[in-house]
């Protein structure tokens, strides 16, 4: 099953290598990885999409948690989470004068945007969750996809708690307590 794992890490050089090295060394599969600074400039968030059975995901979570530079690990796909998931995709599609209006209809239906036009092609920007992106790409495929560029999924929990947590990251205790109980709950399963 696909899991979206949100990882708060120290904003140092080398942390990305630690995380990606962990995945390759232990044979875990990353579907996508997106990294960016958080509201606290000393902390970055990595959003990792990975797949595997429960045992593999549990190991991924625990092994990530073990890295010294990892502050907090959260599986946003777990049962007790509600989240909003988005990916941004830029697609360069073949488009002649004759096919352009058909294309426009699809773009409008998906609330996507045309951000660039050439004589032979247009570039479409679309944002959405995985199923929307997949559907859009499927419909654009017949026109001829010249190039697809994806950011990888990012996601945010709908719980207001998460916002509080990441703000309070500097105050050790709450984060560690959550981090700790998380891994223990996991271990029990």
């Amino acid at each position, binding site marked *: 099953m696909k899991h979206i794992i949100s990882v708060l*890490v120290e904003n140092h050089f080398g942390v990305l290598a630690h995380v990606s090295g962990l995945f390759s060394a232990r044979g875990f599969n990353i579907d996508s990885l997106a990294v960016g600074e958080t509201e606290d400039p000393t902390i970055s968030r990595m959003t990792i999409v990975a797949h595997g059975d429960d045992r593999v995901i549990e190991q991924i979570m625990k092994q990530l948690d073990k890295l010294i530079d990892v502050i907090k690990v959260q599986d946003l796909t777990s049962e007790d989470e509600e989240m909003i998931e988005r990916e941004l995709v830029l697609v360069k599609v073949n488009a002649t004068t004759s096919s352009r209006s058909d294309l426009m209809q699809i773009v409008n239906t998906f609330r996507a945007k045309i951000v660039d036009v050439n004589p032979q092609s247009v570039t479409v920007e679309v944002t959405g969750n995985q199923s929307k992106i997949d559907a859009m790409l499927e419909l654009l495929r017949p026109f001829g996809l010249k190039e697809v560029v994806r950011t990888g999924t990012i996601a945010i929990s709908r719980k207001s708690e998460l916002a509080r947590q990441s703000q309070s990251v500097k105050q050790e205790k709450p984060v560690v307590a959550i981090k700790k109980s998380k891994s223990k709950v996991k271990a029990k399963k």
Partner: protein
Amino acid sequence: MAELTGARILIESLKQEGVEYVFGLPGGAILPTFDALYDSGLKLILVRHEQGASHMADGFGRATGRPGVCIVTSGPAATNTVTGLATAYMDSAPLVCVTGQVATHAIGSDAFQEADVIGITRPVTKHNYLVKDVRQLAQTVKEAFYIASTGRPGPVLIDFPVDVSRAKYEFNYPKEVNIRGYQPRKMAEPQAEQIENAAKAIRASKRPCLYVGGGAIASGAYQEIFEFVEKTGIPITTTILGLGVFPETHPLSLRMLGMHGTVYANYAVQGSDLLISVGARFDDRVTGKIDMFAPHAKIIHIDIDPSSISKTVKVHYPIVGDVKPAIRALSKLVKDKRKQIKDWTAQIEEWKKKHPLKYKNADGQLRQEFIIQKIGELTNHNAVVTTGVGQHQMWTAQWYGFTKPRSMITSGGLGTMGYGFPAAIGAQIGRPGETVICIDGDGSFQMTMCELATAAYHKIPVKVFIMDNAHHGMVRQWQELFYNRRFSGSQLGPSNPDFAKIGEANGVMSLKISKPEETESVIEEALSHSGPVLIHCQVAKEDNVYPMVPAGHALDQVMDMA
């Protein structure tokens, strides 16, 4: 406050950590540091190869529980430590390794003796640092020692560019460490609920068995485990890294389990209805075929590293935490089980009688088992013992008779041949005044024997017994049993070099044992010498280690000697 160079800050920081000895070898990028070391009061053990420095620091760490320190230069020196780091990482040994690095502005330019040491060592260290700014140096050293020695211990590497070692800054050693992603103290205390569930399972069990590993030694939980066993009457087996955590002379000891463990320990694990795993990680050399491991047992697993729990074997009662408080808490919740489990212990006694450890001794050949047994007797089972990897290692585990924690120092996880001799030197530095013995194979010894010069130069009184069977014995054994006796690469030639001559050439007293009847007197002579001694033991060439559970078989599918 006066400003110090980075090199001085490093040395002063080591002193603040209580370091007295460093193992190392100088070179270009680390020269400022060696200059600062020169009159610092820290003592340098000068090695002949950097792999030796890393194994010595590891041996020191395992013998004392405090991180051993090695300091080497950049590039090839740093890559030479990688085997030592990987060895320490697999066995959770505390170690701090400082490597020189080219100047920060030259990093990435393929400079002379440059290597991406941070990249190379990432998968074999608990953590590593590149110090880019002298202002962060003292903090980095503090964190390195903290990370190496707390939680599940392990090696930490500090990559130290030469310009940072020359740059100046005020020296202020931090008193505290605060790493937001690493809070081992908060993990150490086990949750009451987990303890209660496990205690309930122990109370209900009819065929319980303790399975104890290196984590119990790292935790220092010997007394707690001894009291737990004495109180409950539950039999106990250990992994190779757990040897010595519980005296093997005790009637409830089942000695070592696993591929070359005792038959009765393996039968006990397979027959148990509750396996209490304490600071062990279900290595494949312990479990045999994983889906046939302890088939009737519920499993309790105490470990400070949550990622060890349910990694290979499904655990029913996890306890995340330090072994010491966990066992102490469990002890309070359980009673004497001797009556309740008397059928079980009677069964185990029967297995012990039926399948004791044994070796052939009727044919008059000199056998490793015999020599090791004698070393055990003549050192009162009290020495610190290190080994290489292979047959001699397994026979040491079987025949020495360990009674004390931190007395068996061996590469269990990575299986690093060549580990034993430098590890013995490190252990001796950490435990001066104690008898330190390396029981080594002829193959293993030749991988790091250049450190004979180190032992001689620094007068480090280790006693190294080289079991010369002119083979890579364990490889030979597998080829005999599983590869149709095609001995590819396992014969070390018609004979080995004359080890005694090599010892003498290095200024190390060298003795020989070639007959069983001279064994005792030679061991005694070696033990009574105040300096290093090499003992060349010419042993039977084609013996196999038994019992043996072939790889991929269940623990009770055991081959034993006829």
